[in-house]
């Protein structure tokens, strides 16, 4: 068997074939939609929770927050089975609901945004109280624009995490039309006895592309956001 480091000719056939072999376009769309929904959901839920933890005074606020944070110590795998049973009994399998809703509440996201909100002077909140601006409007018109970089960081983080998710989609989907890309990739590998590595690699490249694009586009923001709390 002779091998060459560089192929003698370039061909895009594998890329075409991968689309024919598995419904990659459906998978891509599914992944994109679930990732986008999870991203928006996480941003919304985390930022609202963080806002409450920073700007609203209530009894036991810090205790609730630490309780919240302590859920980060519970591994996702430990809660997977009960989550699956809930989703199943709700009849959300093979749907976007089952793929997205369980991820909306994110302790890490709440923590990240809380740390950023804490750097926003309380006086801004007080000034808007004196001006008669409602809490929600203050949240929407002041807090969110001011913490744009942290929101972008969290958004990219949650999009990528969801894009790369494997185990959960495998559990809650069993039809072609509901599957996501990561499962599709695995399918390529084991469909035949001897995997056609050319096709598998082509599929991998296609799946990686959005990740890379997002990373390149958001790299500056990501760095800024992740180190922001650290030096202040």
């Amino acid at each position, binding site marked *: 068997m002779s091998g060459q480091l560089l192929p003698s000719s370039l061909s895009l056939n594998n890329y075409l074939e991968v689309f024919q072999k598995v419904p990659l376009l459906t998978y891509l769309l599914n992944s994109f939609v679930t990732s986008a929904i999870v991203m928006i959901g996480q941003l919304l839920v985390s930022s609202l929770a963080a806002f409450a933890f920073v700007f609203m005074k209530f009894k036991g606020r810090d205790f609730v927050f630490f309780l919240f944070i302590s859920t980060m110590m519970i591994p996702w795998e430990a809660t997977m089975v009960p989550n699956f049973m809930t989703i199943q009994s709700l009849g959300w399998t093979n749907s976007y609901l089952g793929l997205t809703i369980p991820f909306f509440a994110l302790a890490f996201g709440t923590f990240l945004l809380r740390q950023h909100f804490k750097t926003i*002077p309380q*006086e801004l909140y*007080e*000034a808007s109280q*004196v*001006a008669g601006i409602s809490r929600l409007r203050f949240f929407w018109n002041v807090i969110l624009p*001011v913490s*744009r970089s942290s929101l972008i960081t969290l958004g990219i983080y949650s999009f990528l995490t969801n894009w790369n998710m494997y185990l959960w989609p495998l559990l809650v989907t069993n039809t072609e039309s509901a599957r996501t890309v990561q499962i599709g990739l695995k399918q390529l590998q084991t469909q035949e006895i001897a995997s056609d590595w050319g096709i598998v690699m082509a599929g991998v490249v296609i799946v990686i592309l959005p990740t890379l694009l997002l990373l390149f586009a958001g790299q500056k923001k990501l760095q800024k956001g992740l180190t922001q709390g650290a030096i202040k």
Partner: protein
Amino acid sequence: MTHVSLTGLKKSYDGKKNVIEQVDLQLQQGEFFVLVGPSGCGKSTILRMIAGLEPITDGELFVNGKRMNDAPPNKRDLSMVFQNYALYPHLNVEQNITFGLHTKKISREEQRRRCQEAADMLGLADYLKRKPRELSGGQRQRVALARAIVTQAPLCLMDEPLSNLDAKLRTRMRSEIRQIQRKLGITMIYVTHDQTEAMTMADRMMILHEGQAMQIGKPLDIYNHPANTFVASFIGSPAMNVMEADVSPSGIVLSPHCTVPNPMKGNVKAASKNVQVGIRPEHILFSAPEQADAVVEVVNTEVLGTETLITFILDNAKEQWIARWNGQWQFSVGDRIPIRFDSDAIHLFSKENGRILWAANDGQPNQTAREVLR
């Protein structure tokens, strides 16, 4: 007409210790009132209670005769300027100034008109499209002022608005704020730790110490007639010299070699006790050697151009005294100079509680000042 009235105002965070102790105060319409005291005395807390940003523990707050204890801040019809300006960093100057006006159901044209008016008044017209971070400290301060002005609220609260500015700008803003307040006829409650700001701006002021109102009154009355040693040493720069001394009917014994006449003369009851003597730096005078009350040793001189501050010690006492003389005086450390105390200007305070026993001229402006006033 009474605009704001506080009766028996108290604040406690833990339910046991009061950080604000029984504050009673009536503010007239259009008055410039200053709350002044060292940091931690509770002046900002009082302001925040009036604004509604801090709940009132006990006592009552009336605005225009209406009880406002539990009203939310926006229902109290006031504007507020914060120490760090509290400008919204993502909005430009114009948006910052008009932020929140829509809640008062003010049309867009009216908003723009008011913004333009305030910007012209404060010299911000060229900066309306800039973001706060592109402005200097003084300009940011003006934006915060403009934001208070455009609401046209009859009551304005300011929490140390000038403390982030440099000394020169502070002096200028002081008179600008005062002029604007007069022009618009708004009632102002102004918090500061700087006694100069209080003296120069206030119609009336309240001196606070550890949550207690020490004295309320017109700046000059307080300067001339301080209620206790705290007020005496807080108001005036450099501070009043306050020393312990023995008082006998014949005179006040400041040191073994220095006795000055007792201004209270016949008042034997108070005279029999040990007291504290207070004398302002400007009432310690340079004297011809034969008329001198004492010969003192110079520790330090600060020549300010129009006046000179001389720090000295009297007969090896531990305390240092400060005298303020007009003109430029050159002394070296260790020089011995003859001085005289203006005995009409001596204040006497109780040693136990610091309360005033006798004030110079009994609070009246002294002779020369009164003649000028006529």
